[in-house]
């Protein structure tokens, strides 16, 4: 049955023309270079045409960035933008752009200068600290050294002649030329790192160094980061060039700033003086700079809100103002949107033309070109606009050319997700299957006629209503008037099948098949009627209504019907996945996804459908639950009385085998083959034949998306695993989900029969005109309120779910984005 569905779509390829609405329109990225004098008119004509979606190239974005930068700077400096001045000076957007640019450049320059100065200032501060602290080391070290020297000298005098070997030692001590020359490095290291610093230095020099550290009392501003950090002043003494380079490296690694230092005390004093002088000098310079910056920022702050406002809504305000004087709302909106669009375009380097980029359907190419020519002509421009198609790897927007009938159905699909570019559109089938599944749950031709009348009102007054402002709910109903029309028509049909008119059956299509067994009709309430004629030709036999066996019969019928319809629709979904794979030339998806999926679903639930039909046709009493369950539990057992046809056991074994095979078939080959393909591509061995332009574009997109990405086998495998599990479990749960058709149609039938019997017939029974009128009013309100409004909503939602989940998850990706052309016709919808 599902295959039957596929005929319509199957002709969309190869032998037949492409089907409307099945695939989104082919799109192209176009670039238009417009001379500045005709820009306004061109945009206006393109807006009339409404087939071009402009891409925001820059400008406004750039200005917004500048304004953000100003705001950041102001908050940093603690200046708040002053309240908006209410002067109504209209600033031209172009002037504003230039002004913003100038201010930004100035501010950046001031900032970099002051940063540089600040850094030097901090460095000098640190240097002064070093000079002071290290000076102290040297002073104390020198004094102790001289004391030691004296001691040694004294000792020398004391026992000089006694010990000759000591002379050697003494010589080495005393002779400066033979002494190892000690170097030193001084600087500042952050306090928290000082321990590690010492340890690393010790290890790296193998102890051949001497480190002296003193903590600085107050935290010091680090010149690099600009933050306040507690630091230690250090002096490292070392010997040898190699050690020096090592130490310097370590200093760098620890972020220790080094400063030159002299041993000479006199020079030290001189340097301290020098540095202090420089510090005070810098301080004044920095202060002046800061004042300058604050002035700029204050200036900006004064106008900031105005600009900000202007940037976003200036044109709105300007034209809102005009609004009152001209009272030509549409014209105003038109102008406004033209300016908004112009803001999105970028100026050419020569500033003589604007460059526009945008998406446009391929079929609109000549229309766009005509509009460009017309604009050039009408604006008396010397130069025409240049129209060219760009090649891009970006995915184009999705555009379905819908009409007033199909648009509401397309919106049902889009509410779930906009189709990927050129993906098979479930909307084509939704136009029929959605109202049909709704009607399966809403089968009552009385209610169907009520709905038809209501929607006819909307359709006949379409012209008048579409120009009017409607309430939210009315607006929604009006928008979906053709959906409701289809729902009503199908409800009338299914109502005739269910034989219910406000729950009352009619013998419209001939005589009932059932009659009493004998003229006395004595056992009609115990054994029941007997089938005396051929089956009632159309729909449910009217005799069933009100009988004791009505509910068991309808339950069995509707439950089986739900499964049959569900399996058919799911098969349609899988077939659509074939169309997608075929269209995108994805053979892997055909052989390792579509085929096993089709086999899996049909070997289980297709078989169940077959059993249902066979059971009905031969009137067997076989228990289908038992058959299905034991097909898995003990497939080799004899079916016994549950056998419906010869060879059933063999068929079951084959189907079970196929179902079991198709799971690994879905799971393993695709990721493995993808990996193989990837490897081949990597080695540059796979050359494919050139195809026609359209297909090769697709292919290119495919290739580029796969080629540039890193191939993650595990990721692809996990993805396939999830997909497989989802499908296998989904096959069961989705089939079960279709049982909602049964539940809702049962609820609808029962409710309407309750209202009819317990309200209308009860009131009738009193033989009192007033009670009858009251009863009738109650019946009408209950029917309209509960059955026509609430039941419609619930059946609508359930049909929606069946389409979004059970149907669309078989093939639909829905990760595209909608084509939103710049169009004056759409302006009215956006505003207010």
């Amino acid at each position: 049955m599902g295959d039957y569905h596929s005929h319509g779509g199957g002709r969309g390829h190869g032998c037949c023309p492409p089907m409307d609405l099945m695939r989104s329109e082919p799109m192209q990225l176009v670039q238009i270079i417009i001379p500045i004098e005709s820009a306004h008119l061109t945009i206006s004509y393109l807006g009339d045409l409404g087939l071009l979606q402009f891409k925001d190239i820059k400008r406004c974005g750039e200005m917004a960035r500048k304004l953000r930068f100003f705001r950041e700077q102001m908050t940093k400096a603690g200046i708040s933008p002053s309240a908006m001045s209410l002067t109504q000076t209209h600033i031209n957007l172009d002037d504003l752009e230039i002004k913003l640019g100038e201010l930004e450049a100035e501010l950046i320059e001031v900032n970099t200068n002051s940063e540089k100065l600040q850094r030097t200032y901090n460095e000098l501060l640190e240097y002064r600290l070093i000079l002071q602290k290290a000076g102290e080391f040297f002073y104390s070290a020198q004094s102790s050294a001289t004391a030691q020297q004296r001691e040694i000298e004294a000792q020398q005098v004391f026992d000089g002649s006694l010990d000759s070997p000591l002379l050697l030692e003494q010589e080495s001590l005393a002779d400066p030329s033979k002494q190892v020359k000690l170097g030193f490095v001084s600087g500042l290291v952050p306090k928290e790192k000082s321990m590690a610093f010492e340890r690393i230095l010790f290890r790296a020099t193998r102890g051949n160094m001497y480190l002296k550290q003193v903590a600085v009392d107050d935290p010091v501003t680090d010149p690099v980061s600009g933050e306040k950090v507690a630091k230690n002043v250090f002096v490292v003494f070392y010997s040898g060039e190699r050690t020096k380079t090592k130490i310097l490296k370590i200093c760098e690694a620890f972020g220790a700033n080094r400063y030159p230092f002299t041993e000479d005390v006199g020079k030290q004093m001189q340097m301290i003086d020098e540095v202090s002088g420089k510090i005070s000098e810098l301080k004044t310079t920095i202060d002046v700079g800061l004042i300058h910056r604050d002035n700029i920022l204050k200036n900006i702050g004064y106008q900031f809100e105005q600009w900000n406002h202007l940037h976003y809504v200036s044109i709105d305000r300007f034209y809102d103002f005009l609004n009152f004087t001209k009272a030509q709302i549409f014209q105003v909106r038109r102008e406004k949107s033209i300016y908004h669009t112009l803001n999105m375009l970028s100026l050419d380097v020569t500033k003589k033309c604007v460059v526009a980029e945008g998406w446009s359907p391929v079929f609109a190419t000549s229309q766009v070109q005509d509009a460009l020519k017309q604009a050039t002509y009408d604006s008396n421009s010397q130069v025409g606009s240049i129209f060219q198609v760009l090649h891009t790897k970006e995915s184009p927007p999705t555009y379905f050319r819908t009409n007033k009938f199909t648009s509401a159905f397309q919106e049902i699909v889009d509410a779930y997700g906009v189709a990927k570019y050129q993906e098979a559109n479930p909307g084509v089938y939704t136009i029929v299957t959605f109202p049909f599944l709704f009607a399966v749950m809403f089968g009552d031709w009385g209610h169907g006629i009520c709905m038809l009348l209501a929607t006819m009102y909307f359709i006949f007054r379409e012209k008048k209503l579409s120009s009017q402002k409607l309430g939210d709910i009315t607006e929604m109903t009006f928008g979906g008037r053709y959906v409701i029309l289809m729902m009503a028509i199908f409800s009338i049909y299914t109502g005739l099948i269910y034989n219910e008119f406000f729950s009352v059956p009619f013998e419209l299509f001939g005589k009932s098949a059932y009659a009493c067994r004998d003229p006395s009709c004595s056992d009609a309430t115990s054994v029941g009627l007997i089938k005396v004629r051929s089956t009632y030709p159309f729909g449910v036999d009217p005799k069933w209504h009100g009988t004791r066996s009505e509910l068991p019969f309808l339950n069995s019928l509707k439950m089986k019907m739900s499964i049959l319809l569900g399996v058919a629709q799911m098969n349609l979904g899988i077939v659509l996945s074939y169309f997608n794979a075929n269209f995108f030339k994805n053979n892997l998806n055909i052989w390792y996804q579509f085929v096993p999926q089709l086999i899996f679903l049909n070997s289980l639930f297709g078989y169940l459908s077959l059993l249902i039909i066979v059971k009905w046709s031969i009137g067997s009493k076989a228990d289908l639950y038992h058959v299905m369950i034991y097909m898995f539990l003990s497939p080799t057992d004899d079916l016994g009385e549950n056998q419906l046809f010869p060879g059933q056991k063999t068929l079951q074994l084959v189907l079970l085998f196929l179902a079991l095979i198709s799971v690994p078939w879905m799971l393993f080959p695709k990721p493995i083959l993808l990996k193989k393909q990837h490897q081949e591509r990597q080695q540059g061995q796979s050359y494919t034949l050139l195809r026609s332009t359209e297909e090769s574009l697709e292919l290119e997109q495919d290739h580029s998306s796969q080629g540039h990405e890193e191939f993650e086998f595990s990721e692809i495998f996990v993805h396939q695993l999830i997909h497989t599990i989802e499908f296998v479990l989904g096959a069961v749960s989705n089939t079960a989900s279709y049982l909602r058709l049964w539940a809702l149609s049962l609820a609808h039938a029962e409710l309407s029969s309750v209202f009819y019997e317990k309200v209308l017939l009860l009131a009738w029974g009193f033989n009192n005109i007033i009670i009858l009128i009251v009863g009738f009013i109650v019946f009408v309100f209950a029917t309209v309120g509960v059955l026509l409004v609430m039941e419609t909503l619930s059946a609508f939602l359930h049909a929606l779910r069946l389409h979004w989940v059970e149907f669309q998850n078989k093939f639909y990706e829905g990760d595209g984005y909608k084509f939103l052309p710049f169009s004056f016709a759409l302006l009215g919808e956006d505003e207010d």
Partner: protein
Amino acid sequence: MGFLLTTLIFFLVGVVAALSVCLCCNGGPSTNLFHFTLVVTAVVCCWMMWAIVYLAQLKPLIVPILSEGE
């Protein structure tokens, strides 16, 4: 009226509907194909619904048992 006869009627109705839609709203091959698909889908849905209900009553396992009141 048997199962096959009614099925044939459904088929004929489908053909007539498809043809009349193609003739009435001729909008180029792709639009015609779209309309054809809609008609075919609708007819198939309606036929399925009818066939299911018809088959279910063909060889009834349970028969209507009238309520006591009647």
